[in-house]
């Protein structure tokens, strides 16, 4: 994968929220790539910064949040510093967005057909007649029955699962190279969720679209993503191929996170739990942000902030995997 040029390159991204009580750092030194045709999963608990990362990429950070450092490049072109108007053409044409709640994406006053046609005529060199024909094709493709009739329905006339299908059609219809999907299945019931995941996967593969899939659901990631980034307190704790991160995680946080997922295959007397909770942005501990909860913490973790380094099968921001950490880390690593 490393021989192709990445489609999206995020380097040292820093997002800040100025508040009356000082500046909160919501994202700190976040770097990753997404290659053409690749699905990158981004997981983490609430407040870890996963949605923030997606919002920064599509240029929709909620004010007063702002990008305070680093760069975001799409196909070699910087998009983090584009004027609002230019960013609007990037969004839709080059990056499609899917959000958790389909009702926030769809305009309740327009028929879904009008919204699809408008998106296509804005971004693609086609006229309204052809766009309408294509809109029907898209609705069929995402599995809306009787698409030719339903195209003139309003969003409220669709059920939740069908609405999310319309949103997917809307995100894909201008044939963007990258889709940023933020919790696309969280608002849906499991049986509908399975349908939507299957659909996203097939379409991304067929169209060769890259995808950044933000979710808290590890099961969805395991089924859909090629690689996965695990976020904690505004930083990437671990990143690697999905199988390695899910099956052989290295970072103690990822290990704890995986262990706390209740299994469906058997009953446990006790679930593994991570003590405590994620720190607030205003009180991120010195050194490694995870150190107060980490079962393997040692002196260095409390003073120095770890960068992503090679660790077993993945890359992890953890001093356990730095040879320079010395014997103490080696002992803990042998236990872990």
């Amino acid at each position, binding site marked *: 994968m490393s021989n192709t040029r990445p489609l999206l390159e995020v380097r040292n991204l820093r997002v800040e929220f100025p508040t009356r009580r000082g500046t909160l750092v919501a994202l700190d030194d976040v770097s990753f790539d997404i290659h053409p045709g690749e699905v990158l999963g981004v997981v983490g608990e609430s407040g870890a910064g996963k949605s923030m990362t997606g919002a920064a990429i599509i240029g929709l950070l909620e004010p007063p949040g702002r990008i305070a450092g680093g760069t975001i490049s799409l196909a070699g072109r910087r998009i983090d510093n584009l004027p609002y108007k230019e960013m609007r053409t990037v969004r839709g044409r080059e990056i499609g967005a899917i959000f958790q709640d389909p009702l926030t994406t769809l305009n309740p006053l327009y028929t879904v057909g009008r919204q699809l046609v408008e998106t296509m005529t804005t971004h693609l060199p086609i006229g309204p007649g052809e766009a309408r024909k294509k809109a029907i094709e898209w609705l069929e493709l995402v599995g809306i029955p009787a698409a030719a009739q339903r195209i003139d329905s309003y969003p409220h006339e669709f059920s939740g699962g069908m609405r999310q299908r319309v949103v997917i059609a809307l995100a894909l219809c201008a044939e963007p190279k990258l889709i940023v999907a933020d919790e696309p299945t969280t608002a849906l019931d499991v049986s*509908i969720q399975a349908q939507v995941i299957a659909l996203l996967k097939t379409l991304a593969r067929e169209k060769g679209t890259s995808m950044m899939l933000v979710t808290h659901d590890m099961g969805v990631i395991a089924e859909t993503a090629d690689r996965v980034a695990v976020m904690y307190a505004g930083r990437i704790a671990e990143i690697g191929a999905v*199988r390695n991160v*899910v099956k052989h995680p290295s970072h103690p946080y990822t290990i704890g996170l995986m262990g706390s997922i209740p299994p*469906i*295959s058997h009953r446990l007397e006790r679930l593994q739990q991570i003590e405590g*909770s994620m720190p607030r942005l205003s009180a991120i501990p010195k050194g490694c942000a995870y150190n107060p909860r980490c079962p393997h913490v040692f002196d260095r973790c409390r003073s120095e902030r770890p960068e992503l380094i090679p660790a077993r099968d993945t890359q992890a921001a953890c001093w356990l995997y730095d040879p320079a950490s010395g014997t103490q880390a080696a002992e803990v690593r042998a236990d872990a």
Partner: protein
Amino acid sequence: MPDMIPAADTRPMLETQDVARFFDVSRPLIQRLLAGEGKRMLRAVDGVSFSIPKGTTLSLVGESGCGKSTVARLVVGLYRPTRGTVIFDGQDLAQARADSTQRRRMQMIFQDPYASLNPRWRVRDIIAEPIRAFGLLKTDAEIEARVAELLTHVGLSPLDGQKYPHEFSGGQRQRISIARALSSNPEFLVCDEPTSALDVSVQAQILNLMKDLQRELGLTYLFISHNLAVVRQVSDRVGVMYLGRVVELAPAETLFTTPRHPYTRALMEAIPDLDMTGRQRIPVGGEVPSPINPPSGCPFHPRCPLANDRCRAELPQLIPARDTPEAVVACHAVEEGRDGGPMPGVALAETGAAVAAS
């Protein structure tokens, strides 16, 4: 009741007999008269019967709109049933609720710990409210000591009583909700999606806490959830609901190893595969129909791969399943043996060990 398990203490903590709750969703009278249409009833719960032996956990699972939360509210008396009866420890619920010594024996934990705690009250007052309301303790010193004990019990510090709810994280707030529920020394807790709003690592903390409390205090739980994996961890028995009815009710182990109802199987099939066995999932098609206009016959028939003419016409009753009689299933296909007999659920087919590589 075919689903009762003989228990040492024979009287179940809670029993529902053919309980139903309809909601009137008709348009205003004038509009109805002008349009010449009748009343429209939403059948949220339509004939649900189960019993929960003392000290055990019954879970109800199902997708949104299946009526599971309505059952929770019926069972604690927040709704009155349209039909049928709820029996709490041998006594009709309506009578039990009128008597505060009975009333304090049941409590409820809600899904959203942000909405269920009064933001203007200190935590100690929130937890002490049931104690004061039922007059369980007289002096302030006694109440203070009890609140401190409850806070410690749920893993918080007695000093946290001074604080307000906004100073706590979601998981800590759910601990406060649990402390409040426990403050009247209840025997029966109704938990409506208690961990759905929480992150997964915090969910594990709360589930472990609830298990510990059950063991220590001998609590009986009615546990409502949409998450089958969570349900597997906490339940003795599980009822699967679809469109206001229980379609399968079985001991947890039986349900997860040999799910019988086609809907139960579909639900399990739909769970994302964390073990990455590469198994191709076949998602069930279609969506849950409207409870205002439920389909004829079996409510699941429009989505069911085994549906035939009988399923479209005749409502199946909950009866012991062929080959796995400890499960009661409402399905003509299972009754007639058209389902191919008990098959291991996907949960069992995945032989992959636990994901955690600790």
